[in-house]
């Protein structure tokens, strides 16, 4: 058992390290001019020079930086402020309940809903037109696809807030907030001061990696940026994606240079973020104990409630506006609701989406199953190692787990694609599941690891003593007892797989049309009603799996009261 379990960390590590490293090198080589497949064989810096003088480069870089840093800081600030303001309240409990469905919303579907909401002809303007605004035609406002990427920033922040909130919750669970708050307030400190001085310094280390993941993601996202981002020029990631796919094959070298540059940009941004964090910690160290009990920020604590309501409202409205469009037949500005309804787009759309949904489901299910086996194997190995007195370095493990989330997808997918073409693995089920696994693994690990580690080891001791077989005990005692968190981790992994756009595009060779790639390509210019149906399908698939993950264990153990929580 001992030696066999040790395979799992190795397998897991190679499952995501090998593709990423291979992909990075496969992108760096062409960036420096080496791509023998198209006859480029000498190393030089020509591509970087070309990148820096490209007319679209400065604008693309600016949009990327604005949306990357803007979305991260906004999401971080909002999630902290929301937690600070409403932690423990009824609103908080409502928000916590809504987190899973909010997280299950794929980015693309959210972005589409957001567009339908805030566009000049969107639901928000319709709500007040023409009565309040006098608009008979949509105003010439740049509320989506603006050149600075502000709408992109806002949408990304909205989508990332639930993720950071979830991370806040899991971090807070490890702190004794109620009594910290009690002590702080009995010492006369205001709520904001307690959070900034007592909670945040201890919470932030738990948030550090998630925040960096959000930063890396926001700097390099492609699908959301295609839907909501600026078009002329687009963000750097979208520009790189275009170059990789250009009819002119030499553009791939430029793309590789751009991807490498983006990788460096993300690495530097992460460094900058860490340095800023260090600086703030050092500067604030003295201030933390200066005894000041209140702050002007106490006066804007209510903002957190507003933000929480706003996040929930925006998400709900995104969903509603998609629903409206999907049932619309004639829906012209400034009508608040369609003048004619029709079911035709659902009947047709569902019919057409069957195959993409099927492919999405199978790829997601396979990747999730492979992922859960690897993760449980790793965790079980870790637990047993610990029982023998050997401690794994938690911090190092976390950085490794987060690696696929910190390296921009666009920075290594091209390298994987080139390798896949060489190995004839392009567009195969195996490579498809493999590449999804890279991104599914970290999330499964993150959702499952805490619960798994805190499983009371004595149950296993009793079971092994009774059955004499560790394997049997594992499958008959530990796994069933952990069914609920395992199912939840699987649902999370599945939702992550569903949302993958770039990996499917680069490795699928057009042969794997998932609901996500279909939705994003439709969003590029198609009938809004059809887009709405696809976006809802994309949203409902992971949601259904989430529901299944919640209800199946509850139903299986409906006669066991202790298993209900």
């Amino acid at each position, binding site marked *: 058992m001992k030696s066999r379990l040790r395979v799992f960390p190795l397998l897991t590590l190679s499952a995501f390290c090998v593709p990423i490293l291979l992909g990075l090198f496969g992108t760096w080589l062409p960036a420096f001019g080496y791509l023998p*497949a*198209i*006859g480029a064989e000498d190393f030089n810096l020509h591509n970087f020079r070309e990148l820096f003088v490209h*007319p*679209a480069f*400065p*604008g693309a870089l600016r949009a990327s930086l604005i949306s990357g840093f803007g979305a991260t800081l906004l999401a971080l600030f909002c999630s902290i402020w929301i937690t600070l303001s409403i932690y423990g309240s009824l609103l908080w409990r409502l928000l916590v309940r809504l987190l899973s469905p909010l997280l299950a919303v794929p980015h693309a579907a959210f972005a589409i809903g957001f567009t339908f909401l805030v566009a*000049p*002809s969107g639901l928000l303007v319709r709500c007040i037109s023409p009565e309040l605004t006098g608009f*008979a*035609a*949509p105003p*010439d406002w*740049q509320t989506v*696809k*603006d*050149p600075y990427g502000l709408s992109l920033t806002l949408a990304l922040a909205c989508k990332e807030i639930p993720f950071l909130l979830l991370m806040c919750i899991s971090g807070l669970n490890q702190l004794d907030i109620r009594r910290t708050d009690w002590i702080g307030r009995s010492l006369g400190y205001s709520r904001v001061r307690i959070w900034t001085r007592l909670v945040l310094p201890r919470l932030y280390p738990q948030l550090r990696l998630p925040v960096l993941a959000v930063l890396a993601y926001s700097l390099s996202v492609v699908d959301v940026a295609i839907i909501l981002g*600026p*078009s*002329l*020029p687009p963000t750097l990631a979208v520009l790189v994606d275009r170059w990789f*796919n*250009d*009819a*002119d*094959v030499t*553009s*791939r070298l430029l793309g590789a240079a751009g991807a490498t540059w983006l990788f460096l940009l993300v690495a530097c941004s992460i460094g900058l973020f860490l340095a800023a964090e260090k600086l703030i910690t050092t500067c604030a160290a003295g201030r933390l104990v200066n005894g000041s009990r209140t702050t002007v920020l106490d006066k804007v604590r209510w903002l957190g409630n507003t933000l929480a309501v706003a996040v929930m409202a925006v998400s709900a409205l995104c969903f509603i506006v998609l629903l409206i469009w999907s049932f*619309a*037949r*004639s829906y*012209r*500005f400034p009508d608040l609701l369609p003048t*004619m309804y*029709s079911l035709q787009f659902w009947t*047709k759309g569902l019919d*057409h989406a069957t195959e993409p949904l099927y492919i999405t489901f199978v790829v997601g299910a396979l990747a999730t199953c492979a992922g859960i086996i690897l993760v449980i194997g790793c965790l079980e190995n870790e637990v047993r190692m610990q029982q023998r007195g050997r401690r794994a370095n938690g911090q190092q493990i976390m950085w490794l787990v987060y690696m696929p989330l910190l390296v921009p997808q666009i920075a290594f997918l091209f390298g994987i694609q*080139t390798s896949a*073409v*060489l190995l*004839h693995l*392009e*567009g195969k089920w195996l490579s498809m599941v493999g590449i999804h696994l890279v991104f599914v693994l970290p999330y499964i690990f993150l959702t499952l690891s805490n619960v798994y580690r805190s499983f009371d080891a004595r149950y296993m001791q009793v079971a092994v003593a009774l059955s004499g077989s560790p394997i049997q005990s594992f499958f008959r005692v530990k796994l069933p007892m952990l069914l609920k968190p395992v199912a939840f981790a699987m649902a999370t992994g599945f939702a992550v797989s569903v949302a993958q756009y770039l990996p499917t595009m680069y490795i699928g*060779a*057009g*042969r794997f*049309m998932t609901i996500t790639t*279909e939705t994003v*390509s*439709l969003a*590029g*210019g*198609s*009938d*809004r*009603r*059809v887009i709405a149906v696809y976006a809802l399908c994309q949203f409902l698939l992971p949601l259904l799996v989430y529901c299944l993950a919640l209800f199946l264990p509850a139903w299986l153990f409906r006669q066991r009261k202790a298993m209900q929580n």
Partner: protein
Amino acid sequence: MKQIKRMSLLGLMLMLLMQTAWAAGEDPEWQNILQKAEGQTVYFNAWGGSDVINDYIRWAGAQVKEKYGVQIKHVKVTDIGDVVGRILAEKSAGRTAGGTVDLVWINGENFRAMKENGLLHAPYTQLLPNYRLVDTENKPTTLMDFTVPVDNLEAPWGMAQLVFMYDSAKVAVPPRDMHELLQFARAHPGRVTYPAPPGFHGTTFIKQALLELTTTPEALAGPVAESDFAAVTAPLWAFLDELHPLMWRNGTTFTTGASEMKQLLNDGEILLSLSFNPNEAGNAIASGELPDTIRTYVHKDGTIGNTHFLAVVFNSSVAEGAMVFINFLMSPEAQARKEDPAVWGDPTILAMNKLSVEQKQLFENFPRGMATLSPGELGKVRLEPHASWVEALEKAWIARYSK
């Protein structure tokens, strides 16, 4: 006796409806292709931005599945140029068989790129029974794709012509040339736009403007390298520099293509839209996507027209299946359905005088809606500039306006 009569009637119907099968009976080479095609799965990479076209492709796929056992998978792409790049990468990587793309919907500069790079299957259209029905005499663009010889490397599928749309409830008189368009934009600031090149709708708009504005239109017929690009295009840039500040979003943002334009037209955000399908407005009105006050118009000196084609990729392992599918798409049955405004409304490439009476009947009596122009109203078709202009124009446009 009765039985014989019935059988002959059935035979006649089969003969009439499926000339394909009948013709195939004579040609052993075609027979061979049909045999090999059975059971193949063909990945058809085609622009997926239009719902009616996607529906049509789905229908055609179901037909060949039933008739010939060929499975069609429509890979919806936003720009076929991406696919050309991928095929080229496959070729560069030495993948000469089992390519991921079997069949592409293509024309113009992408055809030129594929032809030049040897990415096309050996000439094959002469093998297709239905190719004989193509109107190569009166439709020169079926033989010269953006003035590049087709050489039987791609099969004509349909005819396209650039048309414009406006809402008659809001606009009394639409602009009938580029100068009028500029005046129109001045009168309605922020309500005019066009799609961004290198999307093909955007590039076509630029080419149309160039054709109308340049003082040396004859230069466009030859390769771009043979003329003074700056001099030929100077009037175009002057025009665009003047137009952009008057446009939607002050010309800082452009639409991605005709589909987005159509939505903005429906919202009332813009007043004019464009399409490569003369029947687009009719379709959109029928599906509720546009109001029934939308009308189609063309510029008075004619608009760009071309032919769109189907090409088999050099490293496809299912070339036979692709050919069978192409042959079906060129059949009178499929072509007539394509031309039906209620389905797609894309004009046929077939010659009516080469069809039998029954086949001809398929093409008659299509109800033409208020929004669709008659062939006479569509006016003169202008020929595409030489394919090499496309890349040069796109590059120049991006360098000027993508900042």
